[in-house]
């Protein structure tokens, strides 16, 4: 798996996007916006919440995986903050609310779940490990 390690800082998003663009196999370029979006959502959360008041790092990895015989582009994001599973702990937003009642924020995890076919979370080796499985474009 090609991996990129970055300090936990918002200005790294550009480097992450460049890395992802270089990893997406030819023919799968249509996935790029979704993968960049998912990476941004996860990393912004890591940069904002995983290391309160201290420096930290994140790791991003890309690889092709066959899950149950079906090929996927897989994005992995890892951080060394306190255990936090965004998929079970972040509340589901109500996307039917109108302007006045809409809380600001809380849409990141929802966007990811909507764009991937499968997502996984595990905590091991003192790190949060998230894997996102993007279905290949037809």
């Amino acid at each position, binding site marked *: 798996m090609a991996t990129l390690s970055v300090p936990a800082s918002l200005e790294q998003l550009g480097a992450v996007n460049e890395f992802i663009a270089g990893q997406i196999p030819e023919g799968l370029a249509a996935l790029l*916006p979704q993968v960049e979006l998912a990476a941004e959502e996860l990393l912004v959360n890591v940069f904002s919440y995983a290391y309160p008041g201290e420096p930290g790092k994140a790791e991003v990895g890309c690889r092709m995986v066959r899950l149950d015989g079906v090929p996927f582009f897989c994005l992995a994001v890892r951080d060394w903050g306190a255990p936090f599973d965004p998929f079970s702990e972040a509340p589901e937003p109500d996307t039917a609310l109108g*302007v006045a009642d809409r809380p*600001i924020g809380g*849409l*990141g995890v*929802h966007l990811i779940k909507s764009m991937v076919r499968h997502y996984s979370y595990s905590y091991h080796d003192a790190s949060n490990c998230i894997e996102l499985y993007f279905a290949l474009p037809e």
Partner: protein
Amino acid sequence: MQHTSTDRDGVTVLAFSGRMDATTVAAFDEAWRARLEAGANRLVIDMGGIEYISSAGLRGILGLLKACKSGGVGLAFCGIGEMVGEVFRISGFTGMLSIHPTADAAVAALA
């Protein structure tokens, strides 16, 4: 992210281009706040040049929506590309916005 601001028949058209993400949304916020402070009361947001938006961008848009609603400012959108449209749809933003195919149509809707 870049933007241009044009006055058309008393409607302010703000056209954005580039990426609307966590590192650039502040420029979006500044742009519309400056127009509202300058007294604009009808606003068209032309997203034709926006190729990418994340939840940070949605946050900027929601701030704009709330400000226009409470300030009684007319607001319309145009130039919603494929990626932006999908993110709007998934987030339930499509129903909250007045969306038009072209800047002309958006300006006309606020006339």
